[in-house]
C-alpha cells in the first residue's frame, strides 16, 4: 500500500483539527489552491534572512 499523498494528508488532518467540514467535491479546488499557496510560500522561504530579521506584522511606513 502506497503512502498517502502529503497534500491530501494535510487537508484531511487540518480539516479535522480546525473543525472545518469538507465536502468531497470541494477537495480538488482546495488542493489546487493549497499547492499554489505552498509554492508561493516556498519562494519566500528560499530567501535567506538572518535570525535577527524583524518581522513587520503591523507595517509602519
Amino acid at each position: 500500500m502506497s503512502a498517502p499523498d502529503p497534500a491530501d494528508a494535510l487537508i484531511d488532518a487540518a480539516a479535522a483539527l480546525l473543525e472545518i467540514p469538507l465536502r468531497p467535491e470541494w477537495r480538488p479546488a482546495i488542493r489546487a489552491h493549497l499547492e499554489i499557496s505552498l509554492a508561493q510560500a516556498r519562494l519566500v522561504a528560499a530567501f535567506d534572512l538572518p535570525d535577527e530579521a524583524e518581522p513587520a506584522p503591523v507595517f509602519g511606513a
Partner: protein
Amino acid sequence: MSGAHMSGAHMSGGGLNAPEADLAWTGAGDIAAGIRAGRLTATGVVAAALARIARDNPRLNAFTDVTAARAVARARAIDAGLAAGRPAGPLAGVPFAVKNLIDIAGLPTRAGSAINRDHPPAGRDATLVARLEAAGAVLVGGLNMGEYAYDFTGENVHDGPSRNPHDLARMTGGSSGGSGGAVAGGLVPIALGSDTNGSIRVPASFCGVFGLKPTYGRLSRAGSFPFVASLDHLGPLARSAADLALAYDAMQGPDPADPVCAERAAEPVSPTLDAPIDGLRIAIAGGYFRAGACLEAISALETVAAALRPVRAIELPEAARARAAAFVITTTEGAALHLARLRTRAGDFDPDVRDRLIAGAMLPAAHVAQAQKFRRWYRDAMLALFASVDVILAPATPCVAPRIGQKTLVLDGTEVPLRPNIGIYTQPISFIGLPVVAVPVALPGGLPAAVQLIGAPWREDLVLRLAHALERRGVVGAPRPPMAA
C-alpha cells in the same frame, strides 16, 4: 442576481436645467463649484444622479443599495444652508457611493457576502463616509464587490457580476468592481473602494478611471469590514486626478477608531496639484513588471513613459518574492478572519472564495512569519531605491478587462488561472503600503488600461501631481464609454 435595493424617495423631478444635462460626465470639483456659485442645486444634481442610477444600473449592476431618501434629504439641507448664507464645503452636493464593505448607517454591511446580510444594520457611517459628507458630498448608495474582497474580477455569485461600462460582457475588475463601474459609467463622480492587493487599481485599469491607493495607514479604515489587516487600504476612484485629490483631502487625518491610521496631520494635496513636475526623478520598472504584460498594458506604459522623458529603467528588488509573500499573508490572514464562518457556514460562501480561504487556513504558520520578515527586508530595499527616484511607473494589470466568466489568462505564453494572476503587478506595491495613483490610458481597441504611478511613503502629493500633469497634457484620461453618452 438581485437588483439594487432602493430606499424610499421619488427619483423623478429635481428640475434639471441646461447645465445639468451632462452631469453624467461632470467632475466633482465642477459640480461643487457650480453649486457654490448658484448655477446648480444639490437637489438637482442628486436627482440627476439617482435618475442615471435607475436608468443604467440594471445594465451595470454597480449598485447593490441606493440610499435615495437619505440623499434627497441631505441635498435639500445643503441647498437650504446655501440659501441661508452658510458656507458650502469643497464637495458641496457631489454624489458619491461606497463599496459595500464600508458602513452605511441603517444597512447591514454585506461585504459582498450572503452571510453578512444577516448582520444587524450599521449603527453609524464609516469614518470616511462621515468625512466626505462633512465636506458637503452626498452618499447615494453602496456598491457591488467580490465576496469579502478576495477577488480581482468584480464577479459576485450572490449579486451577479458588476459589468464594465466599456463592454458589458467584460469584467470591471475587483474587488471594488462596482466602484469602477459606477464612476466609469457616469453614475457618480467619486466612489470609495478598498485595496488589499490591487482592488482599487485593477478596476481603475479595467474600467478606465483614476484610482488612489494611499500610503498604508493614511486613511482611516474604521467602519469597514476587514480582509487582511496587514494590507488593507481604503481610497477613492474618480474620473480625474483633481477629483481624487479633492476626495482624498477631505478624508485625511488621524482617527482613534482605527489603530493603524497614522498620527499624522492632514497634508492637503489639492493646493500643489498644479506645481511643476520638471524636477521629478521618474523611473520605469523593468524585468518582473514587463514580463507577462499584454500588448495593451505595455502600450499604456510606454505612452506615459514617452511623455515623461527622460525616464530611467530600474529593477525592483525581489518583486516576485514580494508578490509571493503578499499572497501568503493574504490567504492566511483572510482564513483566520473567516475561520469561524468556514466551520459553520462554509456552504454559504462563494465557492471560489471559500476554497481559497480553506486552503489558507491549512498553510503552516512558519511561512507567514517568514513572509512578514521578508516584508521588512523588502521595505528597506525599496526605500533605498527611493533615495534616487521620486516616482516609479509600472503597469497596473497584465491584461485589459477579460470577459465575464473567463477562467484563465495567457502570461508570457503560458495559460495560467486568471484570478490569482490579475494582481501580479499591484501586489508587490501594496505589500509595503506605497502610495499609488492608477492613471487610465485610452487605447485604440476600445478597452483602457492603467499605469501605476508609485511614490515613496507619504508622498501622495507627488503621484497625484504627476497624474494631474499627465492628464492636462492629454496623455492619460478617463475615456467616456458610449453608454454614458
